C-alpha cells in the first residue's frame, strides 16, 4: 500500500474515532412589534450578536421585523442627538408632538443576512422548518431581543410581541421547540420585559412540573412581572446596560466596545472555556442594570423551596457557593449591607428617592402640557399673520405642507415668548428620566443582593434536602446551562 494511502487511512481513522461534538446553531429573533416600538437599541443588539457569531464561525439565522431585505420602509425608531435633528421640524414637534416626538426619527434597519420576518405565522413556519432540519448532535441557541407582554392575572400567559403586533406565548414557543430533535440541547436567552415566566419552557408543558424530555435551559433578563432594559431609543452602545450587553460580553470575552474581559473574572471553574452559566454569574456580579436576571436552574430552585425552608434565612451557606460570592461582590461594589433589615431600610430610602423623582417628572410634564397649550394659542394669532391654517397645525402636518410654509411655521414658533421655556422644561424631563433610570438601577442592586442571599441558602439546602428525582432534574438543568458555544 502506498504511503499516501496509509496517510489517508490514518486521517480517516482519527476522524471517525473522535467523539461527536455538538455544534451550536443560533437563531436571533429581534425587533419590535410595530415601528413605534422597534427601538434602535434592539437593532444594535442583534447586529452585535451577528458579529460575535460570525467571528466564531457559528451558523446563525436572523429574523427581524418585517424581514424584507429589499425595502426602504422604516422599521426602526431611534433618538436623534441634538446636533442631528432637523432644525425646522424640531420646534414644530416640540410644540405639537407628544413626549419625545421632537427627538425621534425613523429609518430602515441596516442588518445584513436577515432570513425572514418575526410576524408570527411566518416566523412559526420558518422555525418549524429550521428546527426539523437539525440533527440530534446539533444544539439550539435561541436569542430574543424585543418586547414582551404580560398577563397580570396569570403570567404563564406572558408572550413575545412580534412584528405586525402578533403574539407568541410560552405554550406556542414550547411547541415550536418540540420540532427540534428530542436529543438536541435547546438553550434560550430571552431579554424582553416579563421574561421570567418563560423559565416554564424547561417543562413538558408550561404548567407541568416534569422536565421536558428534550434537554432545555435558559437565561432570562427579568422576572415575570418586571420590565427589562434593552429597548432604548438611544443607540449609544457605551450607555447600554441590558442583559444582552453583559451576558454576551462574558461569553465572548470582550465588551461590545471591544475591551477584553479578564478570563479569571468569568471562568469560575478554570476550565478555559466560558459556559453560559458562567456568563450569567458574571452578569449577576457586574451588571449595573435595572434587570434582575435569572436562569432556569434558579427558577427551579425557587419553585422547589419546601414549606419547612421558607423564610429560614438565618442558616449559613458554604463559602464556595457561587451565589454567595456574587452577593458579596455586588454588596461590596455598591457599598450595600449584605443582608437583613439594613438592606430593607436602604431599599425604602431608594424607593422614596424614586417617588420624589417620579413626582418631579409628573410636575414637569404638566407644566410642559400647559406651555404647549399656551404656545398653540399664541400661534393661532401668529399663523393668521403668516397665512397658515389652524386646522393644519398638528404634529403630522409637516409632511403635507410645502417646505417654505413649514419654515414659516417653525419661525413663528421660535419667535414666541415661551418657546425657550418649553425647551428648557423638555430638556429637564430628559434629565429626570436619566436620574430615574439610575435610581432604578441602584434599587435593583439591593434586590439583587436580597435574591442572591436567598439563592445561596437554597442551593446549600437543596443538596441536603432535595429528593433524588429533584437532584436529577437539577443536574440535567445545570448540565445544559454549563454548556459552551462551540
Amino acid at each position, binding site marked *: 500500500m502506498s504511503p499516501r494511502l496509509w496517510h489517508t487511512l490514518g486521517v480517516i481513522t482519527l476522524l471517525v474515532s473522535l467523539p461527536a461534538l455538538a455544534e451550536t446553531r443560533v437563531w436571533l429573533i429581534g425587533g419590535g412589534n410595530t415601528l413605534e416600538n422597534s427601538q434602535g437599541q434592539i437593532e444594535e443588539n442583534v447586529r452585535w450578536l451577528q458579529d460575535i457569531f460570525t467571528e466564531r464561525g457559528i451558523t446563525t439565522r436572523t429574523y427581524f421585523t418585517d424581514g424584507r431585505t429589499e425595502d426602504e420602509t422604516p422599521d426602526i425608531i431611534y433618538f436623534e442627538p441634538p446636533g442631528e435633528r432637523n432644525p425646522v421640524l424640531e420646534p414644530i414637534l416640540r410644540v405639537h408632538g407628544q413626549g419625545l416626538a421632537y427627538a425621534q426619527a425613523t429609518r430602515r434597519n441596516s442588518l445584513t443576512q436577515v432570513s425572514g420576518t418575526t410576524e408570527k405565522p411566518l416566523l412559526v413556519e420558518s422555525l418549524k422548518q429550521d428546527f426539523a432540519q437539525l440533527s440530534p448532535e446539533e444544539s439550539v441557541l435561541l436569542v430574543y431581543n424585543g418586547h414582551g407582554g404580560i398577563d397580570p392575572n396569570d403570567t404563564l400567559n406572558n408572550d413575545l410581541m412580534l412584528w405586525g403586533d402578533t403574539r407568541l406565548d410560552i405554550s406556542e414557543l414550547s411547541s415550536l421547540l418540540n420540532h427540534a430533535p428530542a436529543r438536541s440541547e435547546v438553550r434560550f436567552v430571552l431579554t424582553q420585559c416579563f421574561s421570567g415566566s418563560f423559565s416554564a419552557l424547561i417543562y413538558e408543558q408550561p404548567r407541568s412540573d416534569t422536565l421536558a424530555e428534550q434537554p432545555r435551559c435558559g437565561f432570562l433578563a427579568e422576572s415575570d412581572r418586571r420590565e427589562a432594559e434593552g429597548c432604548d431609543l438611544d443607540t449609544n452602545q457605551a450607555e447600554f446596560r441590558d442583559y444582552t450587553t453583559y451576558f454576551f460580553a462574558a461569553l465572548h470575552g470582550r465588551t461590545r466596545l471591544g475591551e477584553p474581559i479578564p478570563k479569571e473574572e468569568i471562568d469560575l471553574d478554570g476550565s478555559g472555556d466560558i459556559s453560559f452559566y458562567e456568563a450569567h454569574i458574571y452578569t449577576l456580579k457586574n451588571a449595573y442594570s435595572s434587570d434582575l436576571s435569572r436562569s432556569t436552574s434558579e427558577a427551579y430552585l425557587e419553585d422547589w423551596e*419546601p*414549606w*419547612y*425552608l*421558607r*423564610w*429560614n*434565612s*438565618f*442558616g*449559613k451557606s458554604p463559602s464556595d457557593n457561587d451565589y454567595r460570592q456574587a452577593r458579596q461582590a455586588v454588596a461590596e461594589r455598591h457599598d450595600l449591607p449584605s*443582608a*437583613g*433589615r439594613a*438592606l*430593607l431600610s436602604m*431599599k*425604602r430610602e431608594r*424607593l422614596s428617592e424614586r417617588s420624589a423623582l417620579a413626582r418631579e417628572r409628573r410636575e414637569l410634564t404638566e407644566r410642559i402640557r400647559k406651555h404647549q397649550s399656551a404656545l398653540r394659542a399664541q400661534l393661532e394669532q401668529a399663523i393668521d399673520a403668516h397665512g397658515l391654517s389652524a386646522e393644519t397645525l398638528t404634529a403630522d402636518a409637516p409632511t403635507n405642507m410645502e417646505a417654505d410654509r413649514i419654515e414659516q411655521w417653525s419661525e413663528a414658533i421660535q419667535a414666541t415668548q415661551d418657546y425657550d421655556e418649553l425647551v428648557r422644561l423638555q430638556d429637564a424631563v430628559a434629565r429626570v428620566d436619566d436620574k430615574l433610570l439610575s435610581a432604578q438601577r441602584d434599587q435593583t442592586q439591593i434586590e439583587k443582593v*436580597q435574591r442572591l*442571599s*436567598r439563592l445561596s441558602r437554597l442551593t446549600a439546602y437543596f443538596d441536603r434536602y432535595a429528593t433524588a428525582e429533584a437532584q436529577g432534574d437539577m443536574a440535567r438543568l445545570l448540565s445544559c446551562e454549563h454548556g459552551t458555544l462551540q
Partner: protein
Amino acid sequence: MWTMRILLAGASLLMAVSLYPLALVLVLLADSLWGNAEFLHQVAFGSLRELLVQIASDWWAALPYGLVLWAVIRLFNRFSQKTVIGLSIASLLLILLAFFPPYLPLIFGALLLWATLLSLGFSQLVRKAPV
C-alpha cells in the same frame, strides 16, 4: 357529656391545625431579627395576595406533619411529667440547632415546642372539663 367530648375533640383538632402558623411566627421573628428579613421584604415590596396564597399553601403542606406530631405528643402526655420536660428540652435543642451546625430548619423545633406547650394546656383543659 357528649357535647363536651365533641368540644374537646374540636379544640384538639384546632390546636393541631394551629401548630404551623404558631411555629411560623417564630420563624418569621428569627428571619427578621437575625436573618435576611425575606418575609418583611415580601410584605413591604411584594404582592400581599401572593404572600397569603403561599402561606396557605405551606399551611396545607405542613398539616399532615402537624396532625401526626400532635397525635404523638398527646400520646406522650399520657406518661409522666418527665416526658413533658424532655420534649420541651428537645424542642429547645432543635431550635438552637437552627442557628448552629447542622443548621436544621427552625420550623421543626418550633412545631415541637408549640405542640408541647399546647398539649400541656389541653391536658389542663381536659382535667377541668366535666366529661
